[in-house]
């Protein structure tokens, strides 16, 4: 039953995606209006799904890969709604929608919604660790999207080929400022997530810890490079994409190994 909520949510994000594609193809794009409302509606259904699932489980719905993907998609949409309008990154909705559709679409199609036979006991530290880490991933996803937007605009400016989308992108320097802020937010949240992982009361797999610290170090290097001006904005934008890809791979690995070796 709760999956229907998710299907409706995915349709909302898909509507934003299709609408943007049609408008960009026709050379007419009006940011804010449709995209923001479609993403907002999708977000409401996502929240409803997570709430229903949470009540069923009696804990934060992060018990399998399916729920992890949905929680990640929810974080991306939530952060977009917080950041997008504030930083006038309205077109970000057009870039956010495909990512959410991809995450939710995969979660709905793939047979990964495997329920645990026994009801898992609530563990506040574990739930805090998992949820804060996923919100951090959501922020990194937004930084990745902003990075893509930066590279698209940079490329058009360099080649002197300006397409319709160019006129809807935020100024290059504003976009870079948004990337920097998102990286800092994500980094702080991710640090909290890693630290709280040590308080869960369970032994942590060594590979997971090393990989998580590896991702943390990658973002630390990006921020340090940005702070000390070693890295040009274009490289920071590209590294945001690489960083998020690494983070998603790690997330997959963590969830996969957790499902293979469930906690006692």
């Amino acid at each position, binding site marked *: 039953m709760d999956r229907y909520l998710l299907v409706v949510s995915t349709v909302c994000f898909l509507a934003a995606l299709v609408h943007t594609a049609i408008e960009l193809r026709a050379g007419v794009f009006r940011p804010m209006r449709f995209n923001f409302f479609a993403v907002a509606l999708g977000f409401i259904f996502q929240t409803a799904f997570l709430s229903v699932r949470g009540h069923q489980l009696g804990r934060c719905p992060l018990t399998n890969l399916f729920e992890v993907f949905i929680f990640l998609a929810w974080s991306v949409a939530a952060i977009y709604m917080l950041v997008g309008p504030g930083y006038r990154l309205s077109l970000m909705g057009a870039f956010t929608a495909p990512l959410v559709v991809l995450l939710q679409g995969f979660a709905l199609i793939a047979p990964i919604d495997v329920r645990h036979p026994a009801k898992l006991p609530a563990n506040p530290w574990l739930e805090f660790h998992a949820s804060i880490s996923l919100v951090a991933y959501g922020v990194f996803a937004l930084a990745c999207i902003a990075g893509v937007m930066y590279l698209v605009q940079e490329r058009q*400016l360099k080649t002197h080929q300006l397409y319709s989308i160019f006129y809807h992108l935020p100024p290059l320097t504003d976009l870079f400022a948004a990337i920097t802020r998102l990286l800092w937010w994500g980094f702080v949240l991710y640090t909290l997530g890693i630290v709280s992982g040590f308080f869960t009361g369970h032994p942590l797999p060594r590979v997971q810890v090393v990989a998580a610290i590896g991702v943390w170090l990658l973002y630390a290097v990006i921020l340090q490079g940005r702070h000390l001006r070693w890295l040009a904005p274009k490289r920071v934008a590209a590294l945001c994409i690489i960083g998020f890809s690494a983070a998603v791979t790690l997330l997959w690995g963590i969830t996969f190994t957790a499902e293979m070796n469930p906690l006692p």
Partner: protein
Amino acid sequence: MNLFCIGLSHHTANVATREQFVGSATAESIVREAGCTEALLLTTCNRVEVYAVSHKRISTDEIARCLMRKIDTDPHDYARPFYRYEADKCVQHLFRVASALDSMVVGESEILGQAKKAYESARKSGAAGPCLHRLFQRAFRVAKQVRTHTEIARGAVSAGSVAVDLAQRIFGKLGDCKVLVLGAGETSERTARALVSRGARDLRVSNRSMDRACELAQAVGGRTAPFEEWPTQCREIDILITSTASETPLLTRDKLAPMLRERLDRPLFIIDIAVPRDVDPSVNELEGVYLYDIDSIRSVAEQSLALRRQQVAAAEAIIAEHVTDFANSISQGLHHAARATEHPSLGENSLQASEL
């Protein structure tokens, strides 16, 4: 009731012909001389048009005679370049004009202001009555809708505005940008002025002749910088406008690369409007540098125009919808007017309603 438009524009007449019909007539004089019930005169550098309402048909020659400056010239000589649109065609033409679809530069913004001014002038003089009032109010609405719902006004189409537009795309607000104008030619002055008009405050002018540099700096509210020091300035500035008469490139990749190391996180926008070029094209390959020469600026302007032309069909669709709707409302108005002749009190109400 006849609603018609008679006029000539850059499509049908050259400037020598157009200027023969500008300046002598007013909307009021057209009402008086041609016997219209309502009239409005729209005059711009590209068109002279009369929108009028009359009970009987008024010939194109009569309107041409009203507009003509030389009263001793035979009006038949001039009637040829005039076009005439009646009823729905007139409505459609005005909607196209107000939406800048009929302009020389499609999507330009001046025409709407000019049309509003012409309407205001006719309204004040009493030449424009309820019919033209409704027509023009609707035209302004259509123009606004076209601008909002299509990309007809998107992108800059002149060299100066392209440069400023690109600067805003890179830096956002130009208030904090440092601009160096290298060479004090006419084009760089125009570009500098355009940047100032969009908020640029820190302008430095560097020129071989210090007098000319002072003159330009004063004109644009900037300050001068000795010509020998311009490479040092490149470390600080965000925008460089260059148009010197140098035969060889002043700025090369080798010269600029060390300076960029100190400003890695800030983009540098270079507008090279000199011919031969002042900046080596390979400079554009450097990270964070956006080099636009006169050809690339022209190419951006052409892309904007092409983008605007792509939007014409969407704009025409909006206009067609409004023309049909307006025609329906007019025929309903006429129906009410016919009933009003039988019941005068009803007529007063419908006129008030139409004016609302």
